[in-house]
């Protein structure tokens, strides 16, 4: 565990591990895939040494269902994978959403479709934000843009998972996972005692009434009532929305970009500001809940928008919905397979500004 306030130079993948350990994560279930392999590697060394559980499962499907089991016991548990592996976990995520289980899933996404490559991509936005499994559900999705945020947001993910009894995904990419940056570590949380009664978890019945955790509701009206309650819960997540605004106040054009693309766009914006272009950046940090209210506010004040993503155009749909009363958003998609650089975003931003070059 970490010393509070210590500053360390670590990869994003290691920051996720140290954040999870400091958040009191007791169980990790995983299966190897690049570019997230540093996560199970670190957890396999550290968790057993702390008396906690690391399991390399026989498959991603098994890992996700082990997570479901641990979450049902009320302990802090997580799994991690990368895009194709996350696809395999979707069934269990849907069941956890339906059963209202607190679980943390990390996706250090890679290029796709299919096996794609091992480079960065934002092609999993829809899968993460719209519910990649079957049925009608939402999971909280947090997208770090720095290694410090990777550490902070995985800790927050555990808190939110238990506050809402809901799966939470941390969505990064190969840039966030593989890059090293200084991180200031926080204090370590003591793991929950497995015998602790949270009012819903399965920890041995003893003298109390039996409990049943399930996602199947066959009696008349039961599923309808369940779904109304879930909807109200999803709507209440709005209060945990997170975003970062950079130079938006006097901006004519606001670039909307998340994760590593957000920080790369920041470099472009700084360079364009130096030549007098009034450009700002809105970086959603929580992708669900989406910062729709803030975008609506910015749109109402007359801003124009350009959404930049490392995909064919996914988050741009949520941006357009958010600003639809006042504005529309242009889109620039840098396609996975190419590493994006600040220079790549210059022409799209100038075009959106209406500057002829």
């Amino acid at each position, binding site marked *: 565990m970490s010393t509070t306030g210590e*500053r360390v*130079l670590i990869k994003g993948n290691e920051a996720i591990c140290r954040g999870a350990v400091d958040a009191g994560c007791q169980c990790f279930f995983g299966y190897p895939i*690049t*570019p997230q392999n540093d996560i199970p590697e670190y957890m396999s060394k550290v968790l057993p040494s702390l008396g906690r559980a690391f399991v390399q499962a026989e498959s991603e499907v098994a890992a996700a269902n082990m997570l479901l089991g641990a979450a049902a016991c009320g302990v802090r548990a997580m799994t991690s994978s990368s895009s194709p592996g996350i696809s395999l976990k979707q069934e269990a995520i849907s069941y956890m959403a339906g059963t209202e289980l607190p679980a943390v899933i990390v996706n250090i996404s890679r290029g796709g479709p299919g096996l794609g490559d*091992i*480079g960065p991509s934002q092609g999993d936005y829809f899968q993460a934000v719209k519910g990649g499994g079957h049925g009608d559900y939402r999971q909280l999705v947090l997208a770090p843009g720095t290694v410090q945020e990777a550490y902070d947001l995985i800790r927050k993910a555990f808190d939110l998972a238990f506050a809402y009894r809901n799966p939470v995904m941390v969505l990064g990419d190969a*840039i966030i996972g*593989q*890059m*090293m*940056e*200084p991180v200031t570590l926080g204090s370590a949380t003591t793991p929950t005692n497995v015998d602790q009664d949270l009012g819903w978890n399965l920890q041995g019945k003893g003298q109390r009434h039996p409990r049943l955790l399930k996602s199947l509701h066959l009696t008349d009206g039961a599923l309808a009532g369940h779904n109304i309650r879930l909807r109200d819960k999803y709507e209440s997540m709005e209060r945990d929305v997170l975003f970062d605004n950079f130079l938006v106040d006097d901006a004519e054009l606001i670039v909307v970009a998340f994760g*590593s693309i957000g*920080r*790369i*766009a*920041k*470099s*472009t*914006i*700084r360079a364009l500001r130096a030549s007098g272009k009034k450009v700002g950046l809105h970086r959603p940090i929580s992708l669900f809940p989406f910062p729709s209210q803030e975008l609506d506010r910015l749109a109402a004040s007359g801003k124009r928008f350009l959404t930049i993503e490392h995909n064919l155009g996914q988050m741009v749909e949520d941006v357009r919905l958010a600003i639809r009363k006042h504005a529309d958003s242009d889109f620039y998609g840098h396609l996975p397979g190419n*590493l*994006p*650089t*600040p*220079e790549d975003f210059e022409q799209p931003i100038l075009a959106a500004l209406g500057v002829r070059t």
Partner: protein
Amino acid sequence: MSGYQDVIVAGFGGQGVMLIGTLLAYAAMEDGQNVTYLPVYGPEMRGGTANCTVVVSREDIGSPIIRLPKSLIAMNRPSLDKFQPRVKDGGTVVINSSLVDMDLADNDRLRTVGVPANEIADSLGNTKMANMVAIGAYVQLTSVVPLEVIKASLRKVISPNYAKMIPANEKAIHAGADAVRG
């Protein structure tokens, strides 16, 4: 962008380019600056060329990926061929002249500095320290961090099993700095 520096460090796998990139990143953190270190990973690490990008700034850092760097440390010929054309006008290029013909240096556009890193390291007793000679030269030329902080950071990036190598590596860093001191 006060105090902003970025550099691509490139060479053969085994020349220790990732190690000096990490050393620079550590030193920048110890110096109280912001820093990003991005390795090229995957198939390229096995056999072929290796490179990493380090960005150091007093401001918070945007992109950790740099297409047009301000500086380059080229430990071998393929690295110079690949990255020299991308270095920004007036940028600094440290070239390992033990392995690279200095006629290839683009002196018109860039500040190119040849350092016979292998020979210098050899004269100190171990060719493998050529990477340390090169980082010493780069730090002396750019003042990105104090040389003393680079040396002090060796302890952070060299595993305790090799701690006995640290004094020799400090000497190599110094020799690199001396080689380019005006």
